[in-house]
C-alpha cells in the first residue's frame, strides 16, 4: 500500500498581494486517507483546486501514478479519476437528484438507467437516496450524499473532500466515515480537508499541515495529540478560553410558545419554542444547519416579529418590536452571514458601527449623525478586538472573514447588551481568533449578560455553554446542563441520523 498515487512537488500559486501556495510538496499513496490541515487562509482550498483543474499553478509539477498530470479543466481531472466533494455544495436546488448527478458526469446514461445506478450505489455504500427528489427539499446530510454518489459513480482513484463533516450530525459523521473506510479498503485514496482534529485522528493515515501557504509538517495523526496538531497549524501555543465564575442570576430572556413561519424559501419554520435564559448564562444552541437557526436569530433580533408575549425581556413583552426598539431595550444580535447581513460590504467600518450602535451609543441627534462618535466607537472595537485593518474608514468587504467576524461580534459586545444572540460566532475563523471571540463572550457573560450562542461547532458549544439545547426541524429541545453531555446524547437531541438506519454492509 505504499505506491504513490499523486506526487505533488513545488506547487506554487500566487494571487495579487498573497502567495496562496508556496512550493508545496507532498505525496498521496494508493489507498490512503490523507488529511490536509491548516487554518483559514493557509491555502488548502487553492491547493485542491489545482489538483481538480479549477486553478492553474504558477510553478511546480504533479504526477499521477508516475505520469505528468496537468489538468487544464475539471473535466480532464475527472477523466483521470479525480473526484471532489465541495465544501459549499455545488448542487442545483431546483433540479432533482438524478439531474444533479448527471451534470457531474461526462457521459451520463439515460435518466432511467442512471436512477437505477444511483439506487444501487447508494445501497452499496449505505447512503440511501431517492433519485427523483428535488435537491432543495433535502437535508444537508442528504445533499452531501448526492455529491458523494456523484463522485462514486465515476470510480474515482482520488476522492477530495473539503470540510465534509461541518454540516452533519455525529451519527451522520459515523456513517460517512464507514463509507470512507469502505472506499479505502477498496483501494481509493482520499484527500480529506478539515480543521476538526478529532476526526482526522480517527480517520486519517497521514496529515500534511499547511500554514500561510507553506507546508510546515507531515505527521501521522494517530501519534499526535489534538493539541500538538493545533499548535503545528497555528505555529504557536493555543489559548484556551477561561470561564469567569459567576452565580446564576434572574431570568433575563423568556420565550413562550414562539412559532413563526420562515421568511426564507427553503427555510424551516419555528414551532412552539420555549426557553428561559438567565443573567450571566451562556446557552448553547446546536443542531444541523437549516433546522431553524437563522429563523431563531431573526425572531430574537426582531427582524421577524411574533406575538408580543412570545418573547419577554426582564418580564416585558418584546415579541412585536422591531430590531431598533429591541436594541434600545438591550437585546442585540449578530447574524451568521457576515457580509450582507451583519455588515454592509461596501460601507466603511465606521458606517457599519453606526448602523447597529447608534441607538445604544446615541450617535444621532434629531436625525443628524454624529460621525465623530461613530468613528471613535469603530476605533474602540478595532482596538479591543484586535481587528487587523488599516483603519475604520476601510470598507467591510476589505477585511478577511475572521477579522470582520471579530468586528461584528465586538461591535455588539461593546454596546453592553443584556441579551446577546450570536449565530455561528466563529464560523470560518481561524483557531486563535476563534479563541479570542469565545473568551470575549465568556467575559460578557461574566459581567451579567445572558448569551445565546447558536452554532454548528459542537466543540465550541461544549467549551463555552452552561446549558445546551438543540434545534431540530424548527423545534427546540429542553435545555440540559452542558457539562457531562456525551456525543451520543447530543446527536440524539439533534435528531440523530436522518433515515440512516439502513445497515452498512461491506467494510462496516
Amino acid at each position, binding site marked *: 500500500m505504499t505506491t504513490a498515487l499523486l506526487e505533488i512537488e513545488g506547487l506554487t500559486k500566487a494571487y495579487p498581494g498573497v502567495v496562496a501556495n508556496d512550493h508545496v510538496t507532498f505525496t498521496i499513496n494508493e489507498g490512503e486517507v490523507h488529511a490536509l490541515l491548516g487554518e483559514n487562509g493557509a491555502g488548502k482550498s487553492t491547493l485542491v*483546486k489545482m489538483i481538480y*483543474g*479549477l*486553478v492553474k499553478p504558477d510553478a511546480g509539477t504533479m504526477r499521477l501514478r508516475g505520469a505528468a498530470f496537468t489538468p487544464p*479543466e*475539471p*473535466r480532464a481531472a*475527472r477523466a483521470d479519476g479525480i473526484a471532489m466533494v*465541495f465544501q459549499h*455544495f*455545488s*448542487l*442545483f*436546488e*431546483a*433540479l432533482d437528484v438524478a*439531474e444533479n448527478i*448527471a*451534470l*457531474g458526469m461526462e457521459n*451520463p446514461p439515460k435518466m432511467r438507467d442512471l436512477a437505477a445506478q444511483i439506487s444501487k450505489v447508494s445501497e452499496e455504500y449505505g447512503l440511501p437516496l431517492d433519485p427523483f427528489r428535488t435537491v432543495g427539499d433535502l437535508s444537508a446530510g442528504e445533499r452531501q450524499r448526492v455529491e458523494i454518489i456523484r463522485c462514486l459513480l465515476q470510480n474515482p482513484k482520488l476522492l477530495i473532500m473539503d470540510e465534509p463533516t461541518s454540516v452533519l450530525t455525529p451519527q451522520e459523521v459515523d456513517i460517512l466515515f464507514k463509507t470512507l473506510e469502505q472506499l479505502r479498503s477498496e483501494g481509493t485514496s482520499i484527500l480529506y480537508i478539515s480543521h476538526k482534529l478529532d476526526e482526522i485522528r480517527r480517520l486519517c493515515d497521514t496529515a500534511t499541515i499547511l500554514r500561510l501557504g507553506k507546508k510546515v509538517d507531515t505527521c501521522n495523526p494517530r501519534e499526535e495529540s489534538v493539541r500538538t496538531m493545533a499548535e503545528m497549524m497555528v505555529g504557536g501555543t493555543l489559548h484556551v478560553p477561561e470561564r469567569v465564575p459567576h452565580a446564576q442570576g434572574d431570568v433575563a430572556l423568556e420565550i413562550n410558545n414562539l412559532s413563526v*413561519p*420562515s*421568511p426564507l*424559501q427553503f427555510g424551516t419554520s419555528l414551532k412552539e419554542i420555549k426557553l428561559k435564559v438567565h443573567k450571566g448564562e451562556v446557552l448553547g444552541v446546536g443542531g444541523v444547519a437549516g433546522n431553524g437557526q437563522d429563523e431563531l436569530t431573526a425572531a430574537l433580533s426582531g427582524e421577524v416579529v411574533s406575538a408580543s408575549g412570545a418573547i419577554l425581556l426582564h418580564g416585558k413583552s418584546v415579541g412585536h418590536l422591531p430590531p431598533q426598539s429591541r436594541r434600545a431595550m438591550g437585546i442585540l444580535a449578530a447574524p451568521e452571514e457576515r457580509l450582507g447581513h451583519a455588515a454592509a460590504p461596501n460601507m466603511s467600518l465606521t458606517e457599519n458601527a453606526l448602523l447597529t450602535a447608534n441607538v445604544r451609543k446615541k450617535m444621532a441627534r434629531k436625525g443628524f449623525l454624529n460621525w465623530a462618535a461613530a468613528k471613535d466607537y469603530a476605533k474602540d472595537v478595532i482596538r479591543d478586538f484586535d481587528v487587523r485593518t488599516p483603519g475604520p474608514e476601510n470598507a467591510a468587504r476589505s477585511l478577511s472573514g475572521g477579522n470582520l467576524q471579530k468586528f461584528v461580534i465586538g461591535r455588539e459586545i461593546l454596546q453592553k447588551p443584556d441579551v446577546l444572540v450570536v449565530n455561528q460566532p466563529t464560523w470560518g475563523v481561524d483557531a486563535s481568533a476563534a479563541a479570542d471571540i469565545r473568551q470575549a463572550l465568556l467575559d460578557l457573560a461574566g459581567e451579567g449578560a445572558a448569551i445565546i450562542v447558536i452554532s454548528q461547532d459542537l466543540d465550541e458549544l461544549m467549551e463555552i455553554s452552561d446549558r445546551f439545547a438543540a434545534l431540530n426541524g424548527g423545534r427546540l429541545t429542553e435545555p440540559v446542563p452542558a457539562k457531562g453531555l456525551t456525543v451520543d446524547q447530543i446527536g440524539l437531541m439533534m435528531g440523530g441520523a436522518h433515515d440512516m438506519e439502513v445497515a452498512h454492509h461491506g467494510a462496516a
Partner: protein
Amino acid sequence: MDLSAISPTLLIASLMVAATPILLAAIGELVVEKAGVLNLGVEGMMITGAICGFAIAVETGSPVLGFICAAIGAAILSMIFGVLTQFFLSNQVATGLALTLFGLGLSSLLGQSYVGIKPPSTEKIDFPLLSDIPYLGPIVFNHDLMVYLTLALVAAVWATLKYTRAGLILRAVGENHDAAHALGYKVIRVRLMAIAFGGACAGLGGAYLSLIRVPQWTEGMTAGAGWIALAIVVFASWRPLRVLLGAYLFGGVTVLQLNLQAAGMAIPVEYLSMSPYLITILVLVIMSAPRKGGKARMSLAAPACLGRAFHASS
C-alpha cells in the same frame, strides 16, 4: 352594438396570428432567463428585427430571406448586450434598457427610406381539403408558415429543456452558476448562446409584425410587444407551454378588443386598446401575490441566478 358580427372562428384564427410575434419573443426570452440572464432589451431587438427583415425582404423580394436576416440582425444586436454583461459585467437591467432605446433609435435610422412601402407578401400555406373542414379548417389550417414554425419552436424548446443534456446544462447554469462553473461548464459561453438565441427569436417576432401582421414599416411599430413578451415569461413561471398559453391569452384580448371596436361597443376606443395591457398587469399581480406560507408564486419558479453577474473567481 352588434356582437353577432364577431365570428368565433375568425377570432381564434386571427388570435393565432396576433399572438405569434410575442410568442416568438417570449420563447426566446424564456431561454435567456432560464440561463440566468435578464435581457430587458427584447423590445429593441424586436424592432431591429422588424426593420432588418423588412428592408431585406423589400430589397430582395424574398420574405424568407427577410426573416433569416431579421434573426441574424437581432442576434448581432443582442451580442452587444451579451458582451457588455458577460465580459464587462455591466448591470443587466441597465444594459437591457439601453439596448431597447438603442434598438428603437437604430431601427428608425435604418427605416427612413422604407416608410410607406409594401413588402412582398407571404403566402399562406394551402392544405388541400383540410382547410375546407368547417370551423377547424380556417382555425388550424389556414396560416402562413411562420405560425406553424413558431409552434414547432415552442415544442422544441420545451423538449430540449426537459429531455436533453444541453437543456439540463442550460438550466444548471441559470440555477447556480458557481456550481456549474465548479463542475467545469462554460457559464459565459452557455449564456452568450442563450442570449443570441433570444435575440434571434425576438428578431423573428419583429419581422413577423412588419412583414405579415401589419404589413408595413412604421417607426416604433412594435408598440410594447417586447415588454409584453417579458411579462409573459413571468406569467408563465418560466415554462414553455405556459408561454404559449400566455401569448394566446394576450393575443386573444388584443383581437377581441379590435372586434369589439368594430362591433361598435359603446365605450371609448382608448379603454379597449389599453385592456390587453391592463389584463397583463392584473395577471402579473395575481401571479406574484404571496400565497399561504409567505412565498410568492413567481419566485418559486424563477431561475435562482436570474439577473446575477457571473465572475469566475477561482
